[in-house]
């Protein structure tokens, strides 16, 4: 290959570009990102950056010198507008058309929104979002209403409480993180938020915003209204695939790939935007976690350079979330779990590890302030250990 375009300049795209160079690709390498910034790290945005503990300079994933050393043609602040798969050509909003031999699709996802935009209503995905929300929190709002108790919602709620701001968190499901942890473990998280003073409203949804020139409150599906001068909407993301509409690729809920991360000949995808059959779990998945962006970015680069010999991409997904002084980690998938056991510590102390089983196999491990156990049991998930063997494993 003489030229490759990496479309998307966040974690997956950057790791793919680095892996291409590491694996000996010395041709033309384009790195295209719609944000004006060079690649930066997102996890601190809802925590250290939002809390004002970190300057945004601490989030850069790469220095300008390292970017030079990588030898990329950086197209930052430029949106990709189309992909011609047969001719492997990427068109850009600037009007340029990049004729290349390989393409890495890593355009990620964007926040879903609710209703019409109103001053005081925020989403949090990018660096500019974080700085805008931080400025709003610094103006000492009376109350922040967080809609959605997933990663963004729960972390923003924790950060705002630690800043001494009153927080109401609204969640349609019966517990925070219910989809990834299940209802019982989600309830543990609910208790933690309530202990830290969050007014948590479960089983109720957003019905509308109150206010004309700026948000003044949130109307809920149960007929109540909560006064708020800052609202953070954390109700999930939509994969950025519109630019691929005429490419012929299947972009239903992300770019559909084969088990090796290949979407079409000489076109691979990685990170939040990619959907692929994970042979290990027998499931077609799209994973929105940091670790997957890194590992799939690297894998996709190998697939592009080395073909089938790169093998299937079948990782055990893993995420972490820091809320207050608790570190939550989940490895694997709890979907369809039929057994569950606390294997270390106890729920009362909020320091424990628990494993989930499905059809006799260990499929997930959850840790709260138990990173060592999570990684040990993750190894058992990787090696497809039986649930009964995992129960008696000693770590």
């Amino acid at each position: 290959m003489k030229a490759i375009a990496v479309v998307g300049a966040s974690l997956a795209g950057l790791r793919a570009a680095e892996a291409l160079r590491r694996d000996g690709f010395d041709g033309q390498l384009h790195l295209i990102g719609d944000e004006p910034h060079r690649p930066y790290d997102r996890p601190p945005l809802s925590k250290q950056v939002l809390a004002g503990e970190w300057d945004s300079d601490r989030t850069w994933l790469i220095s300008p010198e390292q970017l030079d050393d990588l030898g990329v043609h950086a197209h930052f602040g430029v949106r990709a507008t189309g992909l011609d798969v047969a001719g492997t050509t990427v068109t850009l909003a600037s009007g340029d058309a990049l004729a290349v031999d390989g393409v890495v699709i890593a355009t990620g996802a964007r926040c879903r929104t609710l209703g019409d935009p109103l001053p005081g209503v925020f989403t949090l995905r990018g660096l500019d979002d974080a700085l805008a929300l931080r400025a709003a929190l610094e103006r000492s709002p009376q109350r922040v209403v967080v809609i959605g108790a997933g990663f963004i919602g729960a972390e923003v709620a924790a950060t705002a409480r630690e800043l001494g701001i009153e927080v109401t968190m609204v969640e349609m499901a019966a517990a925070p993180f219910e989809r990834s942890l299940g209802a019982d473990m989600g309830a543990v998280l609910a208790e933690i938020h309530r202990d830290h003073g969050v007014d948590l409203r479960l089983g109720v949804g957003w019905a509308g915003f109150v206010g004309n020139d700026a948000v003044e409150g949130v109307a809920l599906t149960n007929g109540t209204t909560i006064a708020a001068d800052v609202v953070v909407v954390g109700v999930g993301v939509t994969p950025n695939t519109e630019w691929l509409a005429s490419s012929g690729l299947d972009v239903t809920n992300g770019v559909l790939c084969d088990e090796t991360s290949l979407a079409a000949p000489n076109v691979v995808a990685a990170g939040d935007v990619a959907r692929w059959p994970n042979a290990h779990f027998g499931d077609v998945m799209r994973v929105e976690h940091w670790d997957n962006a890194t590992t799939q970015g690297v894998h996709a680069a190998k697939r592009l350079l080395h073909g089938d010999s790169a093998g299937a991409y079948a990782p055990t997904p893993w995420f972490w979330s820091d809320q207050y002084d608790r570190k939550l980690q989940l490895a694997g998938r709890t979907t369809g779990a039929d057994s569950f056991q606390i294997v270390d510590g106890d729920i009362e102390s909020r320091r424990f590890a628990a494993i989930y089983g499905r059809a006799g196999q260990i499929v997930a491990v959850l840790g709260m302030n138990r990173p060592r156990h999570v990684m040990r049991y993750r190894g058992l998930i990787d090696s497809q250990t039986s649930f009964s063997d995992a129960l008696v494993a000693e770590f």
Partner: protein
Amino acid sequence: MSFKVVVDYDLCESNAICMQIAPEVFEVRDDDFLYLLTETPDDNLRAKVEESAQRCPKQAIKVLDEEEEEEA
């Protein structure tokens, strides 16, 4: 070329990813702190240590060539 591994403990949050990739070098103990088992691992562990550095969620691990270290 031999190499040295350096952990920034101010950044490290003991996510233990490194321990899963290179248990010969990294160990998170029962106190939830990360311990380096060696600062100068064998060269055959370099790929694993570099993967650990890449996949550290806090970017707290650096891999230095011995030369770089002397320069620094």
